[in-house]
C-alpha cells in the first residue's frame, strides 16, 4: 500500500499508467458495423444501403402453419411478400415496395444430424455457423459453403452460392431434400427427383418461387488440411489450375489477384487446402482473429497508389506465412468478415462477381487491363480486391451462371454516393460486364443492379423460362422483390 502511495507521487508512474491504459483502449475500440436491414420506421435496406425502400410491415412467423397462413392470406388479400434472412444480398432481393417482409431469422434450429448418412437437416433461417457449431464436435463438415459462415442457409441457396471447394460442385448439389411453402401456401417436401422440379427454381430463385423452410444437406468428414500457398504470374494460372484439378490432392482452392499499381493484374497468389487424410474432432471453430490489424491493413490499401502496393506486399507476406500450416475443413470455411466493415458516410463498398470460362481466362485478364484503371488513387471508383474461385458447370438451375467450368472473380469496390459518382461506377461496371459477356462469361445476380436489362438477358438467356415459370407457379405474384421488379417482370 505504501509502495503504491509512493509510486503515485512519481510523474513517470502516472505517465506509464496513462500510456498502458490508452494502449488497452486502442486495442479495444470496436469496429463500427454498418447499419442496415429491417427498421421499425418502415424503411428497409440491405447490406449496401443503396436501395432504401418503404415497406408495409415486417412479419415473423411463429411456426410452419403460421408461415402457410401468411402466404395464403397474401394470395387472398393481393399482398406481396419478400423473404429476408440476414440481407447480405445487395440488390433489393429481400424486400419490395409497400410489400410485406417475411423475416425468416426465427427459423434457425438444427433439426436432425444423421451421422451414419452424413446429413444435417436445418431450418432456413439458421446460419452456416450454426450448422458448423452443431457438426464440428462429431467430426463432420459441410461439403460446400461460402468463404464465410455468416449467411443463412435459405439465403445462400436462394442466390445459388458457390465456395472454395473444387470437388463437390455447387452448394445446391449438396441438398438432398427440402421443405418449402409454395406460392399458394402449400407445404411440400421435395427432392432432386421431384417431378415438379421445385428445386430447379428455388435454387437461384431469389425467393420468388416459395419459402425454404428447412433443408437436408450432405456432409463430409471434417478433415485436417495442409495449407499450401504459392506466388504466380497471371499468365500461368489457367494451366496451374488445370493441373490442380486433375491432381486429387487438393480439396479447396482460391486465388487472389493484385490490383496494386506495381503488379496490377500480373501477380497473384494461390491458396490450396491439401488432404492429410486425418479427420479432426477436437479443433475448435476459430473466432475472428487480428481484426484490427487486418482492418488497418485494408484501410491503408483503400487509399490506392503507393499505399495499395504496400497493402499487396503485406498480403503476400501474410499468405507466405500460412504455407505449411494445418487447418480443419470447418475453419477453412469460416473466414473473417468484420475487418471489411466500411461505414464512411457518403461512400459505399460493394461486391460484384464476374464469371469467365476457365479456358478463356488469360485472354480475358489481358483485355481487362484496358477496362479498369491501373492506379485509382485519384479516382472516385476504387477496386480494393479481386479473389478468384472455381465454379463447376451447373446445368440444373435456370438462372445458372456457370454454363461451363468458370472462374469467378469476386471484386470488392468502392465509390461515392453522389449521382455522378454512381453513374461513373455504373458505366465502368457495365463496360466490365460487356467485356465478360464478349468472353463468354456472365455476372452474378445477388449484387447491386449496375448492369442493364439487356446485359441481364444476355447473361441469363433462360430468363424467359424463369419468368414464365414464375407466373405459372405464382399466378397471384405473391413473392416479389426489387430485383425481380427491375430485371424480370
Amino acid at each position: 500500500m505504501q509502495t503504491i502511495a509512493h509510486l503515485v507521487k512519481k510523474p513517470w508512474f502516472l505517465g506509464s499508467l496513462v500510456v498502458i491504459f490508452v494502449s488497452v483502449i486502442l486495442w479495444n475500440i470496436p469496429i463500427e458495423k454498418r447499419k442496415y436491414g429491417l427498421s421499425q420506421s418502415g424503411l428497409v435496406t440491405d447490406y449496401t444501403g443503396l436501395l432504401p425502400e418503404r415497406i408495409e410491415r415486417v412479419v415473423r412467423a411463429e411456426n410452419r402453419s403460421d408461415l402457410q397462413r401468411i402466404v395464403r392470406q397474401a394470395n387472398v388479400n393481393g399482398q406481396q411478400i419478400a423473404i429476408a434472412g440476414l440481407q447480405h444480398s445487395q440488390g433489393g432481393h429481400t424486400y419490395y415496395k409497400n410489400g410485406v417482409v417475411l423475416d425468416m431469422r426465427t427459423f434457425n434450429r438444427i433439426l436432425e444430424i444423421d451421422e451414419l448418412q452424413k446429413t444435417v437437416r436445418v431450418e432456413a433461417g439458421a446460419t452456416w455457423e450454426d450448422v458448423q457449431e452443431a457438426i464440428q464436435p462429431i467430426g463432420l463438415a459441410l461439403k460446400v459453403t461460402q468463404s464465410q459462415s455468416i449467411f443463412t442457409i435459405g439465403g445462400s441457396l436462394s442466390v445459388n452460392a458457390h465456395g472454395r471447394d473444387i470437388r463437390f460442385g455447387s452448394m445446391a448439389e449438396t441438398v438432398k431434400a427440402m421443405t418449402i411453402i409454395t406460392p399458394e401456401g402449400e407445404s411440400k417436401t421435395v427432392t432432386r427427383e421431384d417431378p415438379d422440379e421445385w428445386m430447379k427454381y428455388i435454387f437461384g430463385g431469389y425467393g420468388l418461387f416459395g419459402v425454404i423452410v428447412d433443408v437436408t444437406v450432405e456432409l463430409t468428414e471434417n478433415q485436417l488440411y495442409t495449407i499450401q500457398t504459392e506466388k504466380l504470374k497471371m499468365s500461368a494460372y489457367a494451366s496451374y489450375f488445370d493441373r490442380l484439378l486433375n491432381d486429387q490432392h487438393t480439396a479447396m482452392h482460391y486465388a487472389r489477384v493484385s490490383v496494386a499499381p506495381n503488379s496490377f493484374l500480373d501477380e497473384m497468389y494461390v491458396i490450396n487446402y491439401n488432404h492429410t487424410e486425418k479427420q479432426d474432432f477436437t479443433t475448435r471453430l476459430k473466432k475472428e482473429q487480428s481484426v484490427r490489424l487486418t482492418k488497418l491493413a485494408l484501410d491503408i490499401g483503400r487509399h490506392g497508389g503507393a499505399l495499395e502496393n504496400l497493402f499487396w506486399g503485406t498480403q503476400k507476406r501474410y499468405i507466405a506465412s500460412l504455407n505449411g500450416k494445418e487447418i480443419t475443413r470447418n475453419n477453412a470455411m469460416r473466414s473473417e468478415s468484420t475487418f471489411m466493415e466500411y461505414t464512411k458516410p457518403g461512400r459505399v463498398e460493394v461486391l460484384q462477381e464476374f464469371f469467365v470460362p476457365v479456358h478463356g481466362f488469360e485472354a480475358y485478364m489481358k483485355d481487362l487491363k484496358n477496362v479498369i484503371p491501373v492506379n485509382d488513387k485519384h479516382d472516385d471508383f476504387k477496386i480494393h480486391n479481386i479473389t478468384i474461385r472455381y465454379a463447376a458447370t451447373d446445368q440444373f438451375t435456370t438462372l445458372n451462371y456457370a454454363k461451363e467450368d468458370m472462374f469467378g472473380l469476386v471484386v470488392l469496390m468502392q465509390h461515392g454516393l453522389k449521382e455522378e459518382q454512381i453513374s461513373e461506377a455504373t458505366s465502368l461496371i457495365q463496360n466490365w460486364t460487356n467485356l465478360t459477356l464478349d468472353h463468354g462469361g456472365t455476372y452474378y445476380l445477388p449484387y447491386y443492379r449496375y448492369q442493364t436489362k439487356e446485359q441481364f438477358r444476355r447473361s441469363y438467356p433462360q430468363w424467359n423460362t424463369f419468368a414464365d415459370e414464375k407466373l405459372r407457379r405464382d399466378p397471384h405474384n405473391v413473392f416479389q422483390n426489387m430485383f425481380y421488379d427491375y430485371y424480370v417482370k
Partner: protein
Amino acid sequence: MNHKSTRYLPLIVTVGQVVIFPYYIIWLKEVSLTFTLFAWFFAAFSFAAAWGYRIAQSRKKKDRSYIAIIYAGMGIVYVSIGGIKYSSDILPYVVLLLQVILGLLQGYFRAWHAEQDTYHLHTVHHYLIVGCAMIGFSFVKIISPVVFITTFGILMCMCAVWTLVIHEKEEVVIPRK
C-alpha cells in the same frame, strides 16, 4: 500573476470548463460507439489529469508556470473538437488522443491554480457563477454542442494570448534583479 486582469483568468477558465462540461458530455456520447468506450474515454481523461496534476506539483521552478501554454493547449483542443468530421474512420482514436491531452492540461491547470493566493476565493465565486450560468444556459436551445465547445476554445486561446501579453509587459516594466 501580479496584474489585476490576469488574476481573473483562472476563474474564467475554471467556470468555463464546468459550464461547457454538459455540452462536452453530449458531444462525447455522440462520438463514442458504445457506452463502454464512452466510459473508458473518461477513465483515460482522469488518469491523464492525475498525471498532469503531479507534473505541475513536481516542477522545480515554481515561478515558471507555463500557464499561457496550458490555456492555449486547452483552447486548441476545444477548437479542434469543432473541426472534427463525424464521418472520419479514425474518429475514436482522435477522440482518445484529445481526451488524454485535455486531462493532462486540466490536471496541470488545477494544480497550478491551487497554488495561487486567489484559489479559495475563486472556488466560492466559481460555484456561484456556475450555478447562475447553468440557469441561464437552461433557456438556451442547443443547436449543436460543438458550437459552445468551439466558442469556449476560442475564449481559452484569447486567455492564453492575454496572459502572454501581460507577462511580456511585466518583464519589460519590472527588470529582473
